[in-house]
């Protein structure tokens, strides 16, 4: 028999423990038995109150939600960049590349809901990314502004100009922080 504790050495000691009024036999090796023997204090700390305490901590919402298994139709689609299929992903539980997130966008939310607190990133936003996004917005607004000028809607154009300025100063601020 193998030691119940270290699961490595041969168990040659049987320890009888009383747990919750029930006698239990445990099999340990010499080394583990020597460590277990000394402490036989059975502190009766009510586990119920402990449980209550822990549950009340942050108005806990269970993460594990029952979810239907994702439909198997899209599962054969392979990632164009790394060649992985969703089936392969499930086997390795690892993505082959960043594009897998796009490739398996259908199945991902269901998976992420099971293992994460949500399906959307709410943490730190990459500065470069933020800048890129703002620059994109700026060029879109510029097109609208041009259109407004051509259409002689000068009030709209003025408003768009202010919006563009606000965004531009955001980009400049970002550069200072970086």
């Amino acid at each position: 028999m193998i030691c119940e504790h270290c699961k490595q050495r041969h168990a040659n000691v049987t320890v009888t423990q009383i747990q919750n009024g029930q006698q239990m036999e445990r099999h340990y090796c010499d080394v583990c038995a020597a460590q277990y023997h000394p402490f036989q204090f059975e502190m009766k700390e009510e586990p119920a109150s402990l449980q209550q305490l822990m549950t009340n901590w942050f108005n806990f919402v269970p993460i594990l939600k029952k979810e239907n298994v994702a439909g198997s139709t899209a599962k054969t689609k392979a990632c164009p960049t790394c060649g992985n299929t969703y089936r392969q992903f499930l086997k390795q539980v690892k993505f082959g590349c960043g594009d897998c997130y796009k490739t398996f966008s259908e199945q991902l939310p269901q998976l992420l809901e099971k293992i994460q607190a949500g399906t959307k990133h709410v943490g730190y936003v990459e500065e470069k990314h933020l800048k890129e996004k703002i620059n994109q917005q700026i060029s879109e607004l510029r097109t609208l502004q041009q259109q407004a000028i051509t259409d002689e809607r000068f009030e709209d154009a003025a408003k768009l100009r202010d919006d563009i300025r606000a965004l531009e100063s955001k980009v400049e601020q970002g550069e200072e922080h970086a």
Partner: protein
Amino acid sequence: MNIEHFLTNANPSWMQYESDSDIVISTRIRLARNIANVRFPISFTEQDAEQIEHQLMNALLAINRENPNRFSYFKVKDMPQLQRQILVEKHLISPNLARRQKIGAFFLTEDESISILVNEEDHIRIQSLAQGMNLQQAYGEAKKVDRYLSKSIAYAYEDRYGYLTSCPTNVGTGLRASVMLHLPVLTMTKQMNALIQMMTRLGMVVRGIYGEGSDNLGNVYQISNQITLGKSEEVILQELEKVVEQIIQKEQLARKNLLLRAPAVLEDRLSRSLGTLKYAKILTSEEAASCLSNVRLGVSLGLLEPISQRKLNECMLIMQPGLIQQYAGATLQSTERDMYRAKLLQEKLNEQTRNNGEKGEDSYDV
């Protein structure tokens, strides 16, 4: 800095502060990052790996010029097994990286508080260690390096999923924050199982200190966040901090109760452990861990002569098989290791007793 510096130093400077709690041992932050448009290590080529190492080297060369945090660079494949094992025991690299045959590298700061693992499960993993409970500080340090790298490296990042990682359990913030706790009385009084179950439901993971899947050797547990997506970095750190504070209170209460109910038995047990460490000729790592745990508890309860936490932390570190052999300067069979371990711990603890002797009996009350 050559590798010997990191192998022999059992008392890196980040470990040299006395923390205010004897229950919290250390804090660790890890940020998982990948480089945009390069396949993840599970499917990339050796060429990709080389290129990633180069990119990081170039980025960090610049940091070395303008930053006091100087990084040393090592390739895993150049290192013998024992060296790798020691770095794992010191938590400077992961077991995963240590197993690598061809690819994999890491960067270390001189004080060992920051390491950057390259081409492990993700292209980049920034790790920061701190003594005691210091989540904000450790995160701040990791973030500094992260922001620095992001200047010259385009990360795989998306609006919707944040930082893209090889495993969906890291996506989003890529942040894993861990606190190491010494919980001897919660373990002894069999409250840990219930606690672990509860923590799992709160989105926390509990592990033994000596690597994945290891038992709670020495009653030291590592508590980490499980969630990386759908919560901000700040919330993740705050929640972990709250959980840890509650556990500390629980352990403190359990200690008080134990001391009230069975003081003589407790003092006897803890003193015997100190006796074992001081006089045993053969010590397995299990027995050493268990005795050190008892001594740590005894010192903290004032039942044993004062021994600094720094000393105890050092003992916990050096009793591991890799470091034992490093100290012995030779490859040792398991029985030889157990003998050398007994000798080494004895020396460490005797140094301490001598120092206390000089201070005299009064140091007890401090």
